[in-house]
């Protein structure tokens, strides 16, 4: 009899837990509202997109976007710091509900997580130049020695397309030292990372005057099989583009308007 009771209990428990999973699958948005908190994975080491303030608060464009999402849902926000190597796994394991962490939207990643359309941002490559150099177009890069990072895909492109001469070093610190010492006249790197460097007062004499090249889109991701949440995030992104919210965040954090954000604003305006 005892055994029977136990078996019944176990079956009931299993049934109950499946029904919980079923409801979670049915509507992730409702689930978050019941929980009262939206858990978002953001970067903590990539200013101005996601970093920590001296008091330990998450600041930057992406935490602000996350706060906006939570506000729309009427729930509290909770941040989980992620890095490139663990961000999709955190999403799959349910440690976070939404991922906003400078992630490129690629077909391979779309197989693992649900990358919400439209993409919210894009980054390309650009060059960092001393302010003493007056250059207005990429064509003037012909024959210019350009510090670079060994293995970056755009080294070949700047050489083939613009005739620049990449001088590639093993690390960012070596390349920046070489730039400062005048061993090269420009530093080719991710535009968003250059923006971050330029915010540092030690690089006040440097600038990024040219338009970014070859932009690759960034996507916000949710777990696969959560269409309501994806739909909610998608609508929010379109609304950000419509109201120019991303452009205003760029201004707030002191970086230039990216052409991608401007295009999206024009498209949904």
């Amino acid at each position: 009899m005892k055994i029977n009771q136990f078996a019944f209990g176990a079956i009931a428990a299993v049934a109950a837990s499946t029904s919980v999973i079923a409801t979670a699958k049915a509507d992730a948005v409702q689930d978050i509202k019941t929980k009262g908190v939206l858990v978002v994975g953001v970067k903590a080491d990539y200013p101005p997109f996601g970093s920590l303030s001296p008091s330990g608060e998450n600041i930057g464009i992406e935490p602000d976007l996350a706060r906006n999402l939570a506000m729309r849902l009427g729930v509290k926000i909770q941040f989980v710091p992620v890095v490139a190597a663990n961000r999709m796994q955190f999403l799959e394991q349910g440690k976070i509900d939404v991922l906003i962490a400078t992630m490129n939207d690629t077909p391979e990643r779309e197989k693992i997580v649900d990358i919400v359309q439209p993409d919210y941002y894009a980054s390309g490559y650009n060059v960092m130049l001393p302010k003493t150099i007056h250059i207005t177009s990429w064509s003037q890069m012909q024959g210019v020695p350009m510090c670079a990072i060994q293995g970056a895909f755009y080294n070949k492109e700047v050489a083939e397309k613009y005739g620049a001469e990449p001088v590639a070093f093993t690390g960012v610190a070596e390349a920046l030292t070489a730039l400062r010492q005048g061993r090269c006249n420009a530093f080719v790197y991710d535009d968003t990372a250059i923006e971050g460097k330029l915010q540092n007062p030690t690089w006040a004499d440097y600038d990024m005057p040219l338009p970014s090249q070859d932009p690759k889109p960034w996507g916000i991701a949710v777990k696969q099989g959560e269409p309501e949440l994806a739909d909610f995030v998608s609508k929010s992104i379109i609304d950000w583009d419509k109201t120019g919210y991303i452009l205003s965040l760029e201004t707030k954090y002191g970086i230039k308007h990216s052409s991608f954000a401007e295009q999206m604003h024009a498209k949904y305006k």
Partner: protein
Amino acid sequence: MDLIAGWFSHLNDTTGINFTVFYDAFDRARFLNGFLVTLELCGVTITGSVLMGILGAWGQGARSWLIRVLVQFYIQMFRNTPPLVQVYFFYFGLSALLPKVTDNLGMQHPLIGGFIWASISLICFAGAFNVEIFRSGIEAIPNSTREAAEALGYTRLQTYIHIVLPLALRICMPALTNNLVNLIKTTPLAYAIAVPELLYVSNQIWSDDENVPEMMLLLFIIYIGLVGILVFAMHRWERALRVPGLGR
């Protein structure tokens, strides 16, 4: 040429073994250029370091104590530090103290480029060992030979150039060959300061085409070839210079 390109292209299509340098014009051009830079670097540093060794070994036996101390200081400096650190020291440390030229666009150009800094540091590194190698040869020359030269009216410099050095060279040949082989294998360090030699261009190529194993294999074969040629030439030279009875 087309036949080779076609075959390697076919190899890539059918097996995925991707030797881009044999069929892609851009990759071939930069690989060839890298090979030439490596050859040039080897040539310059081998010549420079041997001269450095000869000069240093003469300095070690100089009458002036200042020259002797300077040579000793030089040897200790370059024998006791890693060559990669020396390359970085010259390129980032010393060169920052040199003046720069600014052109009309406001661009700065360093007076001494990466290739020359790499050559200087590698010459200094291998030269320090060469000094000691030549010293071993010089010390093996019997004092009586020197005295005989002196008796014939040779000055110290003349004795060094005409008697001591030619004999010493024959004695220290095997050790010299070893050090020069090591020097060839040290030249890829120049890639740390962006000198476009073989390892540097290979790195660029395998980053673009993701063919690391193929490029590694190619590098391996090329360095075996380069060192093989040097060893062969040195052995031939050693045999040509052989004086019957010396060192036996």
